[in-house]
């Protein structure tokens, strides 16, 4: 199948800022394929991001795009969606932006079950500032601010989203590009809050500090350390040791989304006025 990438890429805005070997471009192409597949309208699509490498994504896509402040994508997006519930609103950003500095907005966005999609590109590091550990850096890993190994435990972003109340939660990896397409398509079609965590890599600031010899090795690592949920059902706990599950991890149908609920508030208020 062929996709109309040119339709969605803003003329004159490439090349992008991402380093060779970074997975963010793979995610961006997946997002474009999803838009193309679903026939999204540029004028009706709003991509909102925070700060960081991944948050530069909206600048390259030709639709309504909002590059906000660090950590605030979910909160700005909530305002956009409330004011224009008919718009398709998608947040994109990194792990630190979404779940450390933006963690509070992230969990409350999930709790409200607002009809948006949040794509977290989890490369386990603050790349733009040069490789400081984030809230999803594995314990023991090296970063520019964990020279003796990271003492912090890492967030499981997908579990965080499920726990906070998102009604569609999926995980993919930058290695599995076709899976990304499917997950994003399903996520944006879901009525309610959908979160897609994409395990990504940062060869420049994470790989070289953590003994990955090449981008290929990092990509292979994404492949080797993950297991699709379906396949995992047939595996033993021993086989699953150290593996991360991918695919649709949680889906809840039938729970009303936030803007639908607020439309009811308006109805009640106006009925009371009469």
């Amino acid at each position, binding site marked *: 199948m062929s996709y109309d990438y040119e339709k969605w890429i*803003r003329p004159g*805005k490439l090349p992008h800022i991402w380093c060779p070997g970074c997975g963010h471009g793979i995610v961006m192409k997946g997002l474009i394929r999803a838009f193309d597949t679903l026939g999204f309208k*540029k*004028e*009706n699509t*709003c991509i*909102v991001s925070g700060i960081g490498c991944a948050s530069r994504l*909206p*600048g390259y896509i*030709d*639709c*309504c*795009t*909002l*590059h*906000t*402040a660090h950590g*605030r994508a*979910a*909160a*700005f*997006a*909530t*305002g*956009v*969606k*409330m*004011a*224009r519930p*008919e*718009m398709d609103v998608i947040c994109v950003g990194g792990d630190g932006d979404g779940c450390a500095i933006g963690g*509070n*907005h992230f*969990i*409350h966005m999930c709790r409200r079950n607002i009809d948006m999609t949040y794509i977290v590109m989890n490369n386990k590091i603050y790349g733009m500032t040069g490789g400081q550990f984030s809230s999803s850096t594995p314990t023991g890993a090296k970063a520019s601010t964990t020279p003796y190994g990271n003492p912090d435990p890492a967030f499981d972003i997908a579990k965080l989203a499920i726990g906070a109340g998102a009604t569609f939660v999926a995980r993919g990896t930058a290695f599995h590009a076709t899976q990304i397409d499917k997950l994003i398509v399903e996520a944006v079609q879901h009525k309610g809050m959908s979160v897609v965590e994409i395990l990504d890599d940062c060869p420049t600031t994470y790989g070289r500090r953590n003994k990955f010899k090449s981008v290929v090795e990092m990509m292979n690592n994404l492949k080797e350390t993950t297991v699709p949920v379906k396949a995992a059902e047939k595996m033993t706990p021993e086989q699953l040791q150290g593996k991360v599950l991918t695919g649709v991890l949680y889906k809840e149908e039938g729970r009303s989304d936030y803007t639908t609920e*607020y439309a009811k*508030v*308006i109805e*009640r*208020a*106006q009925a*009371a*006025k009469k």
Partner: protein
Amino acid sequence: MSKKVAFLQGNEAAAHGAIYAGCTFFAGYPITPSTEIAEVCSVELPKVGGKFIQMEDEIGAMSAVLGASLAGAKALTATSGPGLSLKQEIIGYGCIAEIPVVIIDIMRGGPSTGMPTGPSQSDIMAAKWGTHGDHPAICLVPASVQEIFDETVRAFNLAEKYRTPVMVMPDEIVGHMRERIVFPEPGEIPVIDRTAPSVPPEKYKPYDTSFGDIPPLAAFGSGYKFHVTGLNKMEDGFPTTKAPIVQAEEERQVRKVEANKADIMKWEEYMVDDAEIVVVAFGSTSRSARFAVNAAREQGIKAGLFRLITFWPFPEERMLEISKKVKAFITPEMNLGQCNGVVRGCIEGNAPVYGIYHVDGEPVNPEEILKKMKEVK
């Protein structure tokens, strides 16, 4: 038909003023002493098809109102000192991305948690310098319940007209006191909406200055698509680090307020013409000052009141003119001299500026002002 009259609290009047101005979106976080604004918005906005959302924190509330404004809504948030501090980075985003929005800050004691239920006027400098970087600042300081209503309407008009965040900062006394208010009829106070683009979507640039310093703002979801960022940007909205563009854009953002000062500034002079002592005051303190001026005149002291209704931009030129004719200024204020310093800064040393400062949660009593007048006479 007689007009609708009510006995309202300042905070309630603020919410009604916002709705009169066409506000359809409120995002906030509970904080004393501003919470009644959120409460009234939660009741009234859905009645007119508007939206109210209580966000998870102050930063989220500020972010949500900017998002809603970009999607075309006139948006309001309300807070008090600690919340204002938290919102500051996002207020700066509103300034650089040029997003109309109104922030009501009911001033309480600080710094930090300070005195949540005590009145204060100590956020005045934070309104101008609270967020980092150079940026335009518009700050209105109403002194009565009616004026909170009227100035909230004006705040929306200024925000929309100049495409920038506007602050309304009543002190806690004005926010919480109750007075009679006469609701204006629809259309009685002009309501200004942002200038919509006159070009078709494919030609639209969000910071196109070919029409002047204030570029028309399209709404997300209205058929226009464009990019918005907090980085220094070019006229098409995309980031740039090109020195001449960054310099010109920053200067333009400040100029759109500075060059239109005459339209934004508002004050009231009471018995200033022949005054030897001029009290410069705002908010509830200006009411104490007026009481003191009347008492002083009865005792043969030539006192006058310069009441600020717009604090930023500050009426520097008029203050300088007055300073050439008077013996002294007095600034009674519920802070440690924030207005005092501003007055000094614009009068070229022409007259002494005496301060009366309260940071104890007590209002400045008219007696204190009268006493100071007698001392400096």
